[in-house]
């Protein structure tokens, strides 16, 4: 067997919620050792987010947390406690990479900011991710993924012209940001390997996300055009949309990208004569008559299940796919072929399906999910003893003085 790409690489993850944890998963899936620094006193929001296995909300049974953290180890430290800080420093000395995603100034306040760390570890690669970055009038703006999707422009261009915008669900930009971070980390490793130098990677999630929206921004700055929303239409294709099928809230996505596909489409729906009709003969014509065209497509799809429509259209060579619901992806034959969902036994949740974060398979060193998401503080002994070489007595001392946290300060509360 080939080794894993990042065998021996060590990550100390102070980052929480989504962006930071999703970032380190790229490394963990390819062999890196990632230790999450958590605390019973300041729970990762995701630990309180549904769904909970067996419908029992506990600190260790959220699969929202699970989804973002397999393959990692968890320690529980009180970073406000002087002896907790000592443990954090031990982890920093151990690590190649430190990640954090608190509001700007938080790590600095704890004496764990990049400038502090750099003095003792000039070769550290330190990632800080925040919503709007350091400096500037909005730096302290409270960062929630739900805010960012609006700020970054994605909400304005989602939904229908005659309705208010329909925001993309959840924390959309978090999943953009994690990718740019992972790339920057590997590039920084490459630089360190050549020069021995570490560095500070500072992310404004706002600035990063705009790269997924760059041409419309240029269109405004050069041409003064403000992009709006238009359902599922697209200037370069018609028909192009999501059409209703038989059953409750069932849909199919169809995109006719060129004239050949248009002819194939007409064949597939049993109306080859349409291809010859003047009002639909060219893309500009189809765009002009798009309302009628969409009605005609809908009349056809409505009589079929999404699966039937997809089958007929694919056979004819027309880009199409059912609008998958969550339950559909667990049965998706393509995802099964790529072993996308990985079932693993979790000590509290039982058998759960985990997803990889990397959407790529390396032919010789493929992604791997080997361990479930950790319980809170599950690896205190393993990390402090086996990875950091501390003695049982030392660890017991930290537990006794509360710098290793072991209990929630109050009752566990579900946040979402």
């Amino acid at each position, binding site marked *: 067997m080939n080794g894993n*790409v*990042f065998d021996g690489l060590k990550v100390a993850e102070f980052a929480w919620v989504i962006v930071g944890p999703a970032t380190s998963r*790229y490394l963990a899936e390819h062999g890196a050792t990632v230790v999450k620094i958590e605390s019973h006193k300041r729970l990762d929001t995701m630990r309180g987010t*549904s*769904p909970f296995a067996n419908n029992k909300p506990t600190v260790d049974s959220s699969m*929202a947390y699970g989804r973002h953290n397999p393959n990692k180890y968890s320690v529980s430290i009180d970073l406000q406690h002087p002896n907790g800080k000592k443990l954090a420093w031990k982890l920093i000395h151990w690590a190649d990479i430190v990640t954090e995603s608190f509001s700007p100034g938080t790590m600095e306040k704890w004496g764990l900011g*990049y400038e502090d760390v750099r003095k003792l570890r000039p070769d550290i690669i330190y990632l800080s991710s925040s919503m709007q970055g350091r*400096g500037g*009038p*909005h730096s302290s*703006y*409270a960062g929630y993924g739900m805010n960012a999707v*609006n*700020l970054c*422009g994605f909400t304005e261009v*989602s*939904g229908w012209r005659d*309705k208010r915008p*329909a925001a993309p*669900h959840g*924390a959309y930009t978090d999943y953009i940001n994690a990718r740019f971070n*992972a790339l*920057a980390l590997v590039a*920084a490793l*490459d630089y360190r390997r050549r020069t021995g130098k570490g560095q*500070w990677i*500072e992310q*404004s999630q706002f*600035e*990063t996300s*705009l*790269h*997924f929206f760059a*041409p419309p*921004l240029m269109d*405004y700055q*050069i041409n003064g055009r*403000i992009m709006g929303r238009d359902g*599922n239409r697209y200037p370069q*294709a018609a028909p192009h949309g999501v059409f209703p099928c038989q059953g409750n809230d069932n*849909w*199919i996505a169809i995109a006719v*990208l060129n004239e050949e596909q248009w002819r194939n489409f007409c064949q597939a729906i049993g109306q080859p004569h349409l291809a010859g009709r003047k009002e639909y003969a060219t893309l500009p014509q189809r765009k002009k008559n798009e309302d009628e065209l969409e009605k005609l497509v809908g009349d056809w799809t409505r009589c079929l299940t999404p699966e039937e429509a997809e089958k007929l259209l694919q056979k004819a060579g*027309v*880009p199409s*796919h*059912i609008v*998958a*619901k*969550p339950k559909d*992806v667990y049965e998706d*034959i*393509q*995802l099964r*072929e790529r072993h*996308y969902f990985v079932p693993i036994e979790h000590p509290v949740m039982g058998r759960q399906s985990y997803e990889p974060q990397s*959407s790529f398979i*390396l032919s010789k*060193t493929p992604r791997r999910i080997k361990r479930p998401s950790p319980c809170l503080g599950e690896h205190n002994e393993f990390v402090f003893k086996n990875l950091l070489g501390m003695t049982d007595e030392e660890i017991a001392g930290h537990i006794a003085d509360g710098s290793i946290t072991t209990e929630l300060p109050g009752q566990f*509360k579900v946040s979402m």
Partner: protein
Amino acid sequence: MYHQEAESTLPPYRILDLTEGGCMLGGRLLADLGADVIMIEPPGGSPSRTGPHYKNVVDPEKSLFWWAYNANKRGITLDIARAEGRKLFKDLVRKSDAVLESFEPGYLDHLKLGYPDLGRIKPDIILTSITPFGQNGPKAHYQASDLTVWASGAYLYACGNPDRAPTWISFPQAGLFGGAEGAIGTMTAIWHRNNTGEGQHVDVSMQESALSPNLNILQMWDVSGVEFHRLGGALYVPSTGVQQPIYFECRDGYVMILVQGGNEPFISSSARLVKWMAEEGMAPEWLVRLNWTLDYDATTMGQPIADRVGEAVERFTLTRTKAELYEEGAIKRQILIAPVSNTKDISENLQLKSRDYWEKLDHADLDDAVVYCGPFIRMSETPLKYQRRAPLIGEHNDEIYGEELGISREKLDSLKEKRII
């Protein structure tokens, strides 16, 4: 321009970029980090030179989409489908670290330019293939577009108004995810090659990256059997079925306000909002008296109170602009407000200006300098550099074929004549 003297994060790894559409972002990111990325277009130009266009002039050399995702790259033309073109391509591969491509699976194999073929020419080559569903499997040859791939990831189903079809993000995203994944996969493979001398094939699935933004809704089904229903922006509380309105119309568009209770920081934020409304004489008595901890707890409240609060808040937001609500509400008063920004708002945003975000690149051929999105991340030792605008069609043919491969002037002319380049 700043920091042009600093080192690059990456050495000039030679990357040949054959991708199209949003996937072109992958090579762009590697180029920003310092790689020597060469965009290879078919003679006559790439089909990805699409609109919008510079000053609305429809011209492949004025495609803003092309500019955005190919800045910092060099560009050549080459017809790899013909024998002479294939030979040139192989000559380029011999001097390269990685090849990025987004053709239908099997297309390069059919041209005898697949991973095994390239591996014979250069054993440690990395080939990164970005496709809708991956290289193998029952859907590998599905006809697909950005929208249909988006649909296959279930995230599309989660977005849009409940009474109409689910809606995508009007600027296509799936290809961009594929491109970003291609860049990470390529760098991961380069790290492995640097350690072991071994190249490999990187197989990106855009479907898989389209699953990524689902937050917890896949698990809601898998773990709890709960089906997600899109709400077009309201906040849905699964345990009660209550929808809390969080999008509000204002004078020039919309804002989101996380009007919630039950937990901090929402309780304090909502209380601060009501205080502001009261100062402006726009908070009804019952709203001032509302206990955000007890009366607006998502797990116990009912729909009528949610609707009532929503209407009262919107009466207030309608008196103000996005910018006023953001600057005074979010920044000064620490209320959880976000503007629903459009491209104009973003372009004029104070924070981006204050951090010197926007970059200008010279387009000497147009006698103009054009504003681009700034560095995708800030790196203290090796700041990302903006060195060149996207290449014109075949702009670097002479430089790369002539100077680097040593092809003679006559031979180049003949290749041009035959439309190989």
